[in-house]
């Protein structure tokens, strides 16, 4: 890098060096007027943007507003949140400009080299034609990249930053938001209204992810093995039932099960007609019955997909191993434990991981089954809520944005640590190009 800069300083001609200050100067010198004009236009519009609002936006990003709104005095105050958003936007604009700036110098320098070696210069038209050929990927990726940046990256950066402010609760515009460092994370860890709830929910969340993934996985595998047995006739018909369950949109299944277990639902009606008293399976006191129902309903939803997957992998097994095991006198359970499970675990590791993360962040299950319930001993949550449900309750229903953002970061930390450890070790990542 340093070397390149040094040679550049020594060999570049004056117009090329001028490009450092006046973008496009080098291009003018070497006869590419249209490209030079384009670069000049980029620079001028950048200066215009910075003067017009860029500088203010960046300052606003750090101060998050200094002028409180005052309706009596007729002062339109600063909106801290919009200022932060615009600040991030300004940084993105600067990054894009930096890209063009570097391109400008590189381009000018390349033109100088071409001129010195008496090579013909590329015209703008050739550059455009390149977009359809050599640089096809630039053209193609531009649109998805912009979309992802605006609707995925920008919001995520914004929420990461929010986790370090006191935005939310009573402090929403027109009140001024401030940077508070790691205060929100401290609040989650120590005794405050958030701390105990956080620890209780985190414990249940981990237990839930572990239990549901294990149950679903082995139930799905068992079902696949069952359907794979030689004595089963009409496999396609038997398989159709789980696929039916798989195809129904999740929210319908969940709402239906909620109705089924509700106070007036059919199960309670049957209990009543047999002389029992109705039981609130998902009611406010039903801690473990609600959790159990959650596990079973999740099973109903996820088992078919695992079954389909396992069926595919089961047909790839090396059956001679089973023959050998049979000759050595291994029983069926021993075959399952020593051959089937290790093979399947190896083949489906990435999916298993995906299932674990998916279950850890399974928002739908308890949102539909017991949504919107707040309990004593929990702050704006219930005893079946997972972290992601709590996050929703806090940030979308109750405006505790900063705490919600902090929880998102904790969830991110947990899931990414787990997945990175597993994923980096899995063969499907290391041998990405096996098929090429």
């Amino acid at each position, binding site marked *: 890098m340093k070397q390149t800069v040094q040679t550049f300083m020594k060999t570049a001609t004056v117009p090329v060096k001028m490009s450092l200050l006046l973008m496009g100067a080098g291009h003018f010198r070497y006869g590419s007027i249209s490209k030079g004009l384009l670069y000049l236009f980029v620079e001028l519009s950048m200066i215009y943007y910075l003067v017009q609002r860029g500088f203010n936006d960046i300052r606003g990003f750090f101060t998050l507003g200094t002028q409180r709104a005052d309706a009596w005095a007729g002062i339109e105050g600063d909106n801290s949140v919009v200022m932060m958003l615009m600040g991030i936007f300004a940084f993105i604009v600067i990054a894009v400009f930096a890209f063009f700036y570097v391109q400008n110098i590189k381009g000018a320098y390349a033109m100088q080299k071409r001129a010195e070696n008496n090579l013909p210069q590329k015209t703008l038209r050739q550059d455009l034609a390149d977009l359809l050929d050599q640089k096809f990927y630039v053209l193609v990726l531009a649109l998805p990249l912009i979309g992802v940046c605006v609707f995925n990256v920008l919001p995520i950066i914004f929420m990461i930053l929010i986790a370090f402010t006191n935005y939310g609760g009573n402090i929403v515009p027109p009140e001024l938001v401030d940077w508070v460092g790691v205060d929100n994370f401290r609040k989650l860890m120590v005794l405050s209204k958030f701390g105990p709830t956080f620890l209780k929910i985190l414990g249940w969340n981990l237990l839930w992810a572990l239990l549901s993934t294990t149950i679903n996985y082995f139930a799905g595998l068992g079902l696949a093995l069952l359907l794979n047995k030689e004595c089963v006739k009409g496999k396609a018909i*038997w398989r159709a039932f789980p696929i039916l369950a798989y195809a129904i949109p999740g929210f319908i299944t969940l709402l239906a099960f909620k109705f089924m277990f509700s106070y007036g639902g059919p199960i309670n009606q049957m209990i009543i007609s047999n002389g029992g008293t109705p039981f609130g399976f998902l009611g406010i006191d039903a801690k473990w019955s609600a959790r159990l129902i959650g596990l079973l309903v999740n099973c109903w939803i996820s088992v078919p997909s695992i079954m389909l997957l396992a069926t595919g992998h089961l047909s790839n097994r090396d059956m001679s191993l089973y023959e050998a095991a049979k000759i050595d006198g291994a029983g069926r359970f021993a075959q399952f434990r020593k051959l089937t499970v290790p093979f399947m675990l190896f083949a489906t590791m990435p999916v298993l991981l995906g299932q674990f993360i998916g279950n850890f962040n399974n928002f739908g299950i308890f949102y539909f089954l017991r949504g919107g319930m707040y309990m004593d001993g929990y702050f704006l949550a219930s005893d079946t809520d997972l972290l992601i449900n709590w996050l929703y309750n806090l940030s*979308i229903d109750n405006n505790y944005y900063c705490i919600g953002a902090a929880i998102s970061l904790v969830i991110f930390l947990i899931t990414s640590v787990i997945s990175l450890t597993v994923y980096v070790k899995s063969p499907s990542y290391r041998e990405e190009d096996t098929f090429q």
Partner: protein
Amino acid sequence: MKQKNGFKMLDTGVTYVLLIAVAFIFFFPCLWIILASLSKSGSIYSFDGFFPRSYSLATFKKLFTDTTMYNYPKWFLNTLMVATGSCILGTFLTILTAYTMSRFEFKARKPMMKITMVLGMFPSFMGMTAVYLLMTQFGLINHLWGLILIYAAGAPMGYLTQKGFFDTIPKAIDEAAKIDGATNLQIFTKINLPLAKPMIVYTALTSFTWPWSDFILPKLLLKEKNLYTVAVGLMSLDETEFARFAAGSVFIALPIVVLYFCLVRNMVNGIAAGAVKG
């Protein structure tokens, strides 16, 4: 030998008992909803246990005619529009992204793949508040277009399945075409795109069903009852409107179920690549 035969019979018997149990577990809730949609009275309280006392098609008729409180036809059209729009745009963007990531070597490729992996680990609606704020800034709250924009823009994030597919198409074909003087654009549109038809179908299906059954975004961005999608609308029905819920569910689940059964083979490949239903 005789004992072994007996064991085999027993084994077969147990297998079939288990199969019937599984079929019952998966089929019964569906049957329950279908029958409930055909019930004469709407409330869940008037049912005899699991099943309605009398049957008629009145609920379906009511679903489409009685629209003052619950405008199901409108919800259905909204859902259809959002799902179709994001399906077309999303599929287009995803296929393009996957193809480029699979075929081109450029400096930013590996970093981009890593970044998308990291981004995918953030909780899905972590940025919802920010998206909401952005949409207010753009003036797209209470517009179906806003939803389509978000779904389509997010779609390329899930390009990995499709990239895996393009990875399996031999590069030698491309090189042969290049020698014959084809540009990269031509190689894409004339060679790889036709070969990727199954993958395009799969992508279209998933990017159609996701908005079709999503409820978080519409709930956040659509505040007017007339703009609800079916998922949000059905959520607002309570136990006294159970038959209406059931009928609405059957009507919206049916197209998806049919599609899945037709394309179940494509779906399996998709799951194998690690898609999670949620």
